[in-house]
């Protein structure tokens, strides 16, 4: 499925010292089953054909690489290109992964689908593919996120899935993941768990990356067609890290391309109130993998803070931790305020309303473009569209409907 020579994770599911399978014993058999299924199917011609035909006919791929004229004019120090994942069916990159994983579920004969969601985009993308195959679907979502992403909650329900609001802990994405894992342990025989990011135990970080790496593969081809060389930099927001990993992965060996992941800086990294484990975390074990984590000295996971529900997670996919440590990717953080400013600016300048998650990537153009010259090409991964965030933004701007 991927042409990359770059051969991680290893057999045990590690990217260097990150990753692995830290799960209760009951889940081991399900992970093994998934691993075996995936290793058989990933090189199977019929499977690949089915996946790519769904990506084209159902998702609408390939997504354009679009030249952002007015943003480019604003910075005057290089061409800015937008990889338009916001144009995908359901409005974000998340559907690339769910279209792939639902095929795995189908092959494994699973009748019941579960998923966690933060911003609700992964919940919508999962409910969508489950509806398409007529499978029972349960979405776990922190009650705080149910509130701030109410539009997506309703979409998920319209698609026939059940939404379970999770009140425990910080009532956000991490707690939704806890609850999804508990459901999985309890219904292991007939249930397939579609994890929504490059997180969780092996083989999930690998599988979710592979399904999303169609994005990076398209960018390689589109860059050749549109500006006849590889981009100087690719910028993507990082929550769990799936949109970033999907666009980074095919570029790991393309040394001339800088890979820049943007985490949620919340109120500012120095305040401790953020969701930026790669900027301000230490290695630890959460949700099945060892990776950078926001934790205290006692190993307790810290509460996170971000205006964007999809980035509001204390951990990060293990492959990002590894790319950080070997120095192949750079990870920076952008504050809530700067992300909101970018949200408005991009909407007004380009007629494209990005998701608040994506707005973090746009906000990093401000410092980045100062380092580049006018012949350079920068690609922003527009991971999703902002319709879902209208309530949040209106609330912040003091607008009532």
């Amino acid at each position, binding site marked *: 499925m991927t042409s990359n020579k770059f051969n991680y994770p290893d057999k045990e599911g590690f990217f260097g010292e990150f990753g692995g*399978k*830290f*799960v*209760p*014993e*009951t*889940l*081991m*058999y*399900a992970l*093994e089953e998934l691993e075996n299924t995936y290793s058989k199917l990933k090189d199977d011609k019929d499977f690949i054909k089915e996946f790519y035909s769904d990506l084209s006919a159902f998702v609408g791929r390939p997504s354009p690489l679009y030249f952002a004229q007015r943003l480019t004019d604003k910075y005057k120090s290089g061409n800015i290109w937008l990889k338009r994942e916001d144009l995908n069916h359901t409005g974000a990159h998340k559907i690339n992964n769910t279209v792939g994983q639902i095929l795995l579920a189908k092959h494994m004969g699973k009748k019941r689908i579960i998923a966690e969601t933060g911003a609700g985009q992964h919940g919508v993308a999962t409910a969508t593919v489950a509806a398409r195959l007529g499978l029972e679907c349960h979405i776990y979502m922190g009650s705080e996120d149910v509130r701030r992403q109410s539009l997506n909650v309703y979409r998920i329900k319209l698609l026939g899935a059940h939404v379970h609001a999770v009140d*425990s*802990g910080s009532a956000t994405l*991490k*707690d939704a993941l*806890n609850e999804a*894992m*508990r459901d999985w*342990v*309890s*219904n*292991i*025989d007939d249930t397939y768990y579609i994890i929504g990011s490059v997180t969780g135990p092996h083989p999930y970080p690998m599988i979710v990356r592979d399904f999303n790496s169609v994005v990076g593969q398209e960018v390689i081809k589109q860059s050749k067609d549109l500006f006849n060389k590889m981009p100087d930099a690719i910028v993507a927001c990082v929550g769990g890290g799936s949109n970033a990993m999907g666009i980074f992965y095919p570029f790991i060996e393309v040394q001339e391309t800088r890979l820049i992941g943007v985490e949620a800086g919340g109120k500012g990294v120095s305040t401790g109130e953020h969701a930026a484990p790669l900027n301000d975390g230490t290695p*630890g*074990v*959460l*949700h*099945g993998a060892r990776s950078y*984590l926001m*934790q205290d*000295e*006692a*190993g*307790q*996971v810290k509460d996170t803070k971000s205006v964007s529900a999809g980035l509001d997670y204390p951990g990060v996919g293990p492959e990002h931790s590894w790319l950080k440590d070997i120095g192949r990717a750079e990870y920076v953080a952008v504050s809530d305020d700067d992300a909101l400013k970018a949200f408005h600016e991009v909407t007004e300048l380009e007629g494209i309303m990005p998701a608040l998650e994506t707005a973090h990537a746009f906000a990093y153009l401000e410092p980045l473009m100062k380092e580049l010259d006018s012949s350079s090409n920068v690609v922003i991964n527009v991971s999703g569209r902002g319709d879902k965030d209208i309530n949040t933004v209106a609330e912040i701007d003091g607008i009532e409907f």
Partner: protein
Amino acid sequence: MNRLTSTLSNLKANNQKALVAYLVAGDPDMDSTLDLMHLFVESGVDVIEIGVPFTDPIAEGPTIQRAHDRALKNNISLKMILSLVDEFRKSNKETPIVLMGYLNTFISHIDLVQATGKDGIDSILVVDIPGELNLETYGISNPNINTISLISPTTKENRVELIANNSTGFIYYVNLRGVTGSSNLNISEIENNIGRIKKYTDLPTLAGFGIKTTEDAKTLAKFSDGIIIGSSIVEMINEASTTKEFDRIGKYIKDMKIAIS
């Protein structure tokens, strides 16, 4: 010999079954936990299992999750738990103590785990790791402490042996596909699976998860080396969290002990 190992082998030699009781350290507060540990022993508990609170206890059902949350509100850390055990050991040097928790809290305190002497905790059970994972890889090794691995209904036969060989305390058989506090025990499946484990190891095999009534306890004691009760005790602790009148728990444990004798 390790306190846990000798306790379990003495019980076996006398044809008796082990009663293991669980609580979460610091729920409702550390003084109560110490009182409860002594009450456990007076009422017939053979091994005390102390839950180390964690922010994200994915293997726990609502009852024990809430106990973790309450304990974390009291800022309970592994360091405080080890001090609590020291306090307990001032008057009890016999009853084995197992710490049950999540990998991240243990690897954050490897120094403390390594410094534990003979009269401290006796065993560690990490819930969120596969049974064959060797904790020494993560720096958790101490001659005074043994480790307990879990085997579940979904563990394939080829891994049972691997896991059994990796365990030094006892084998913890997880009775059901689910989290702590679930119900619906499938007795014949449990009997079959414990029988299968016994083909591979002489280590005691204890059954836990979902045990609530004296009938459950009596049935499971027939083919296991002992039983572990958690959620029902934690529930009773919570109900008495303001009055601190824990007599009901003592009675419950005594009934359980009679049921398995």
